[in-house]
């Protein structure tokens, strides 16, 4: 819980032909995090083609499932074998053909829908066309000297098309508009050659089917439309039926393809993460938890009977910053993780601040917002959070509980300090004492961060930095000596020469170390050393004073409640209780929100920034497809 689990670096050699099964085995154990490492001896990615085919097949399968409305319930038998490249290619080919069938069906359905919309617009258009004093059958005669066309074009293109047609000796005459389309007649002298076909295509022109009898028999248009509607309805029915047939025809094989692709996924993912190889050998490189090594070895032995070779080693010192962090937490701590993760992931070997964060955050919130009533309301409100806010429910309820606890300590219920007897005292009872206590908490907190930072630097392989750096042990000695000296000074005992000597020595050590670590011209180096050393000292105290806000907000809470009571006192009974109610709502929402942010700020800036790099990468092992387990007997 306080640091990432120890990992081993594993190099696993196997036959390229067995790589799919090795990847499947590793994924089924969920303990192998592949890593991309350049290796001149292993120039190839033996599963590159496998991955490409997989990605193509997987995309097609998803589309088929979506198109046919099928759910692929995948359960894998324990002795399942991953498909070879040839098998995967075969699946991909079949999926392509199947998708083409489904796609044609989909395309036809879309066209029917489009035609239906168009037909709806035609009804009105025909009515208007009918009122025009012309006979379309004569107008559109193909053997006429006049090249006339009836059709529709996007309205936005009309002006441009008219100008362009004029250059070819044609005219465009609109007679109707509907849904962004303009219905028009285009006419001009008939000529040999391409004519205006290319131009009309370019402009999105669509010919309008006109029944020849439109003028002579007014019913013709209605009949035509009814006939078209029937045709489209029939076509839609056929396509629906076709879709159902597809589901029946392809369902079994689609399910089988889903299983085969689930088995192929681990190698495809490993290939994407940097699987290397040479000729007939494939090499998996990655990280495995030390305690899972025996299980992995046994599983490999059972499955491949020595047809593999595995080299295991501890992480090298110079690669520590690239080792992923395998972190595990008790269930109750997990809701706090999003707040820690928003800062970063602990590096391998680094102190994991999740538990410290949870405890300190909740206590700081409680100390700044201590009130039995307000805390209980926060607990109640947080308990209603569900779904994606589930994590916030636990954080909110815990923070509310801390608020209740500190409410008892301060003796405050909805701001009333006479309802219960305080276990300690109200913040306003002795503000100076509260402020001093807050600084004391800050000193303790900063000391803890310096200790943790010293530890982290040791673990990162930087012992000198841990001992002599401003953020390490020397900084801790400087801080303790100065904090102790200042405390003595304020209590009237004087700073103390011994403490002064220790602080000076620590400051000089920090300066000397900064000088040694700075690579620049002498003048610049001296300037950097002076500024950085002074900054170390001033930062430590600025960070400490930042904790004054803990006392300030606890005082602020009481002061706000007093302000509400003062306002309420000058009102009638109804106004009084309304003011009390609204005042408490404002305190909970506004002040509660500010305190939550301030507590987070203290943790991030005064805490994490001193010792937590947050630059780690989470352990992300190869896994079987979500919701899939190996071991279900088919």
């Amino acid at each position: 819980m306080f640091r990432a689990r120890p990992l081993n670096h594993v190099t696993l050699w196997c036959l390229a032909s067995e790589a799919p099964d090795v990847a499947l085995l590793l994924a089924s154990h969920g303990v192998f995090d592949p890593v991309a490492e350049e290796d001149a001896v292993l120039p190839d990615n033996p599963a590159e083609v496998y991955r490409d085919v997989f990605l193509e097949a997987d995309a097609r399968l998803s589309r088929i499932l979506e198109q046919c409305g099928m759910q692929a319930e995948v359960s894998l038998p324990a002795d399942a074998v991953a498909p070879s490249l040839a098998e995967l290619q075969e699946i991909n080919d079949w999926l392509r053909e199947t998708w083409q069938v489904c796609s044609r069906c989909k395309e036809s359905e879309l066209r029917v829908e489009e035609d239906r919309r168009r037909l709806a617009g035609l009804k009105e258009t025909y009515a208007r066309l009918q009122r025009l004093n012309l006979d379309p059958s004569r107008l559109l005669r193909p053997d006429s000297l006049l090249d006339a066309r009836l059709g529709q074009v996007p309205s936005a293109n009309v002006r441009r098309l008219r100008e362009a047609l004029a250059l070819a000796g044609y005219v465009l005459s609109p007679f109707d508009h509907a849904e962004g389309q303009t219905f028009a007649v285009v006419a001009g002298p008939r000529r040999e050659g391409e004519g205006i076909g290319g131009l009309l295509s370019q402009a999105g022109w669509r010919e309008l089917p006109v029944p020849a009898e439109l003028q002579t028999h007014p019913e013709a248009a209605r009949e035509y439309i009814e006939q078209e509607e029937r045709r489209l309805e029939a076509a839609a029915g056929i396509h629906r039926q076709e879709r159902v047939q597809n589901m029946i025809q392809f369902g079994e094989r689609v399910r089988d393809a889903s299983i085969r692709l689930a088995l192929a996924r681990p190698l495809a993912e490993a290939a994407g993460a940097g699987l290397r190889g040479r000729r007939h050998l494939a090499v998996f490189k990655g990280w495995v938890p030390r305690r899972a090594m025996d299980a992995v070895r046994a599983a490999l032995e059972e499955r491949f009977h020595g047809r593999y070779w595995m080299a295991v080693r501890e992480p090298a010192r110079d690669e520590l910053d690239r080792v992923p962090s395998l972190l595990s937490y008790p269930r109750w701590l997990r809701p706090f993780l999003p707040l820690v993760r928003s800062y970063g992931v602990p590096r391998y070997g680094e102190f994991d601040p999740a538990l410290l964060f949870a405890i300190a955050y909740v206590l700081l919130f409680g100390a700044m917002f201590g009130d039995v009533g307000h805390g209980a309301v926060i607990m109640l409100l947080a308990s209603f959070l569900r779904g994606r806010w589930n994590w916030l429910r636990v954080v909110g309820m815990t923070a509310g509980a801390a608020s209740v606890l500190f409410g008892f300590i301060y003796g405050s219920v909805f701001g009333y300090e006479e309802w219960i007897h305080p276990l300690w005292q109200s913040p306003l009872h002795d503000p100076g004492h509260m402020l001093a206590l807050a600084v004391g908490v800050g000193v303790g907190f900063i000391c803890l961060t310096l200790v943790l930072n010293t530890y982290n630097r040791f673990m990162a392989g930087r012992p000198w930095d841990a001992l002599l750096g401003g953020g390490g042990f020397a900084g801790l000695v400087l801080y303790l000596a100065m904090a102790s000296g200042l405390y003595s000074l304020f209590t009237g005992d004087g700073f103390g020469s011994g403490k002064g000597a220790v602080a000076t020595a620590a400051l000089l050590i920090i300066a000397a170390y900064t000088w040694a670590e700075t690579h620049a011209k002498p003048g610049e180096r001296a300037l950097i050393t002076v500024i950085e050393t002074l900054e170390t000292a001033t930062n430590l105290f600025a960070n400490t004073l930042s904790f004054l806000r803990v006392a300030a907000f606890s005082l602020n809470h009481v002061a706000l409640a007093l302000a509400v009571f003062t306002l309420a006192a000058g009102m009638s009974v109804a106004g009084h209780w309304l003011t009390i109610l609204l005042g408490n709502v404002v305190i909970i929402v506004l002040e509660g929100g500010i305190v939550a942010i301030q507590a987070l700020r203290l943790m991030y800036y005064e805490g994490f920034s001193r010792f937590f790099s947050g630059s780690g990468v989470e352990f992300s092992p190869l896994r079987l497809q979500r919701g899939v387990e190996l071991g279900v007997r088919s």
Partner: protein
Amino acid sequence: MSAYLNTRVSLYSERLWTDEQFSRLIRIPHAEVPESLTRRGLGALARGYGGSDPLSLEGRIIAQLLDETRVLVRPLTGPDRQFIIYWTHRFEVSNVKTLLRAKMAGERFTSLVPRLIDMGPFARLDLEDLVHADDVMELFRRLEHTPYADIVRHARRAFEESHDPFILDATLDRAYYEGLVHRAQPIEAAAGKPMRDLMASIIDRTNLVWLLRYRFNYDLPPARVYYLLVGGHYRFQAELLQRLVTQTSVESVIAALPPALGRTLGGARSIMEVFCSLEAEAAERARQVLHSAAYPLARAFAYLILRERDLRRVRVVLRGRHLRLSDDAVEQALGHTACGVA
């Protein structure tokens, strides 16, 4: 905000290359090239120097342009911001064309992916999804759920009628530039002549070159050529374009141009020479706007035009060096590249 943009543009303009600096880049030893590139803000190109992948070089150049655009766009709001962001979309239009051509040719996604431009924060298309379309009609359907839906729906219908890939390219290009003109109009009202000059240099050049190519290289009829041009704006109003498309040769088109434009073209005889002359004129105008006290957005736009021109030329030099061409050959290619030929 305009002070920020003005300062940023002035700082960036220090990165622009002079002809002498290009000559030096051609001749300096290999080891000094990365440093020379880094000094002019091209660290990303310096890091990949020596690599053999032209696609990667192209990608890094566009990434550089997009990165600088991202910085310039930061203080902008409203139509100014929309305009500059839209200016980057021509790379995405290029992605759409690449996707369509690849699907028409039945290419597999693995060979297609490296050719697509990574639009970074300006991306509006889910390329990961689009590359997996099995054929061109499916790609059309997917594109109809993107911000390019209107253009693509129109292009699809046209394509269904004729199955001519030229229609797709022409429709996409024309729709893009119409959109650019549309977005520039409110800015021209505020920024006045400098912005109008910049837009005129882009749209007029595009129109004239398209006109010549469509008419005399592709042999399209005048009416169709006219339709494919960007609507009458700037120096090429509708009447002039209508007159030009009916001309029967490159020379007669040039002769029918307004006298001022004719002087700009000098003795240009071919489409290439026309392009070169107009490109040089556009660069000169952009330089004037950049070094004036023009509306900040106009200066930023001028910088982007000049920076892109520079980067095209840097690409030529780097590729020339990679192919071990002689200095003179690279210099010669550079002269053409100033006109976007190489």
